[in-house]
């Protein structure tokens, strides 16, 4: 009996009661951070899952706009979260926030410190996606959706299709923080904007923001973003167009790609060799020329030239214009020369990386022999080895 009293009194001693009914909380799915017009303040907008729909909540019928967008201004993120209670009438729960959109104005003004509570607070998920927008982040969260109920959910599902497109470089929060705390303190964040399709507005991904230390210094356009993909060894698939001439065009679909970076540091001089190995298939062939060995080599050379030009453009922009190393070059150098790194990382971006001598070697290969033939098969049909009945035709000849 004594034991029973002792054990049951333990229940009374437990301090923090964290059982909260799910219908007493407002679940945030996307967060937008912007610079406020007031000085030193944040404009925080949240996309909240609307708990009821018009049908009384029994089914999952998708009416447009099944979300609530709220906006407030506060000094810090946490303060804003508390302030939201006034308008949302419920406590906000950020555990399901999967999308964080940062306005460009804020991004250009030391925004990383504002994201600190994402890591510090125990209830935020760190595998959510981070974006930078040139529009108002509230408008991004408020755009109409194609399939899902929530804009944020749709954005996340977009990013899961990323391997079929070269120009999108999604980054999760923990990856972002890993870059920021890495040897270089530079990072990249994908850009998002509001596009127009006929009369409807919808979100559109494209381009990459370049983050140096803790602010955004520039932007890569969609083509330059592809070049960045090669430089950070993050190409998983995608198509490369190869125009042979006015009429004849080919598409090369990447199945496998690997970038190796070999830095060579001598004092403050850096020589870098970037080796790109690509394997892929001929996805689209509108040329009439016969597939010969020579022709393949010609195509492969064209692919090599295309990729090299792409990489070179991006690299030039990063080296000369932005003077920011968000590629793997810095990381590889740090790993190869850990002792020297201490002495050089102070002026890595401005001097060493900017003046580095970069050699790019691209080696592409066409695989899947069956897909290598001509686009029209008329010519081939009469050839004897393609005739399944050739034994019988020879009998009756």
């Amino acid at each position, binding site marked *: 009996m004594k034991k029973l009293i002792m054990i049951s009194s333990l*229940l009374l001693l*437990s301090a923090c009661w*964290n*059982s*909260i*009914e*799910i*219908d007493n*909380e407002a*679940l945030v*799915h996307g967060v937008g951070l912007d610079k406020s017009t007031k000085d030193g303040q944040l404009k925080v907008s949240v996309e909240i*899952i609307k*708990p*009821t*729909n018009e049908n*009384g*909540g*029994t089914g*999952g019928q998708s009416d447009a706009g*099944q979300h609530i967008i709220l906006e407030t201004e506060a000094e810090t993120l946490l303060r804003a979260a508390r302030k939201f209670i006034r308008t949302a009438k419920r406590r906000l*729960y950020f*555990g*399901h926030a*999967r999308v964080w959109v940062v306005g460009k104005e804020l991004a250009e003004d030391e925004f990383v410190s504002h994201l600190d509570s994402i890591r510090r607070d125990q*209830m935020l*998920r760190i595998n959510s996606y981070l974006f930078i927008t040139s529009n108002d982040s509230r408008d991004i969260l408020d755009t109409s959706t194609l399939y899902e*109920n*929530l804009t944020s*959910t749709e954005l*996340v599902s977009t990013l899961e299709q990323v391997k079929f497109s070269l120009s999108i470089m999604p980054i999760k929060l923990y990856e972002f923080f890993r870059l920021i705390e890495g040897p270089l303190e530079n990072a990249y964040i994908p850009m998002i904007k509001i596009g127009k399709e006929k009369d409807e507005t919808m979100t559109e991904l494209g381009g990459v923001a370049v983050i140096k230390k803790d602010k955004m210094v520039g932007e890569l356009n969609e083509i330059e973003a592809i070049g960045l993909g090669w430089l950070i060894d993050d190409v998983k698939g995608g198509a490369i167009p190869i125009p042979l001439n006015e009429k004849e065009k080919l598409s090369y679909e990447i199945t496998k790609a690997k970038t190796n970076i070999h830095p060579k540091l001598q004092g403050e001089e850096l020589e870098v060799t970037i080796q790109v190995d690509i394997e892929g298939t001929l996805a689209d062939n509108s040329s009439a020329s016969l597939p010969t060995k020579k022709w393949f080599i010609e195509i492969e050379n064209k692919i090599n030239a295309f990729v090299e030009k792409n990489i070179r453009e991006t690299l030039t922009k990063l080296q000369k214009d932005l003077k920011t190393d968000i590629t793997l070059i810095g990381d590889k150098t740090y790993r190869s020369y850990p002792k020297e790194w201490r002495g050089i990382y102070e002026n890595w971006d401005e001097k060493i990386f900017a003046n580095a001598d970069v050699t790019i070697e691209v080696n592409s290969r066409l695989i899947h022999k069956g897909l290598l033939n001509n686009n029209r098969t008329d010519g081939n049909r009469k050839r004897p080895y393609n005739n399944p009945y050739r034994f019988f035709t020879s009998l009756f000849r």
Partner: protein
Amino acid sequence: MKGHSHIKRLIKNLVSPRKRADNNQENEKWQPFFSDIDKNEDELHKKLGESPDISIRTFIVRMDNGKSIQVLLLSIDGITSTETIRNDVLQSLLEHPPRFAPNRQVEAFQEKISTKRIRIIDNMEQAIYRVLKGKVLLLIDGQTKGLLIDAEEFQQRSIQEPDNERTVRGSNDGFVEITNTNLSFIRERIAHPSLQFETTELGHYSRTGVTIAYIKGIADPALLERVKDRLANIELDSIESSGQIEQLIEDHPYSIFPTIGNTERPDKASTFLMDGRILIFVEGNPVSLVIPYLFIDNVQSIEDYHSRPYYSSFIRILRFFAFIISISLPALYISALNFQKEIIPSDMIVPIIQAREIVPFPLAMEIIMMIIMFEIVREAGVRLPEQIGSALSIVGALILGEVSVSAGLVGAPTIVVVSLSYISAFVITSIADVTALLRILLFTSSSIFGLFGLIVALMGFFAHMISLTSLGVPYMAPFAPTYFRDWLDAVIRFPTRLLKHRKKSIPNQREVKVQTVPNTAGKK
């Protein structure tokens, strides 16, 4: 020093176990028969009362020397075969006059009676108890000894496959209430002299026959001794069912887990015997007890061995999974919704909170309501006659499922969670009662402490399960004492030709059970 007396008592019990085996004989006091048959008749009338089913008849038998002698026949109607009494006792005595032998008159009568078993008895008290179990007593005038004749014939229902242990591929017979019939089922399957049955009678009033079945040379003698000792120490007025004996002799009477199994299937019973287990049959109860019975036996089924190993293994894994789901799904659900909201998949959260929004009760209350309603429907369904059962299922399915959701009393995900948990429990019917309790306990713990509570409660239950023993045999074998060889036939059942040894988890004396297997086409 409080524990001292406990230890003392324990040692005392170990050194001199109180033998209670003869306790039942106590009320069979020694009382000889009278030599006068009329006095005997009066005494019998006095002892047995005037119940209508007791028949005491006297008649005259002519002996071979022409003399007549008076004979008394005592039997109970309904449990004796009138045919046997008429043909084998009365008719043979009247048609074949017994010898006249003044000193050995009883033996002379015994020679002429042609029933299968007959013995001489000189204790009236004991004779009465035998008669009440279906024997027939024959007394001869002038003799202080009687003849006890076997003529039992109990009413027996037809043999059916037990409802709660159905199989698709396997024998279709089941045990009945008569132990002798049940033993014959076992004999049919194991025709070896090592198969032993030992019967004792338990209960001062009910005098229930309790039979231990085992195979000498396979069953562990220590285990057998333990079972016999426990049974011998039972002293009570009546035995109602085998379940009562189960609870009296098991190691952990206060645990929610049953450590003694039961079966109504003869094929299962004989397989258990061949494992080295001990079976207990109780008169008047078709359910036989299985000792030892381990946790893994709940997951295994006799049918697993009848078909090919692959699907059986899949089904066993499924049963394990169903057990885990059944006990923890409501607990996991409430932890996810009220505590660790992060673990809800983000795509699922919209329908879940939309369903929760319209429900007026807290989630814990909603789930408790559903659990209680399901239990009520289940309990009502078991007891109801079949004709009303269909009405009940309509009410249960419609009212509980459909209408309560559209009325906004219960959320649809809650119904899915609770009903999935209930349906999973029926995959392992042998511990469905434990599952129901565990579900409620785990749910209670996690509705207070969330996932943390669920994990602590699960750890507690696992620790408890590991500490259990089934008459000295570890309950969680072959996992908790790890016997890797038994893993060949634990969760995954390996092909039959690889299972050459008896399970080590069940103590036995004969390790190898498969001596040779044919070499088939040179492939292993």
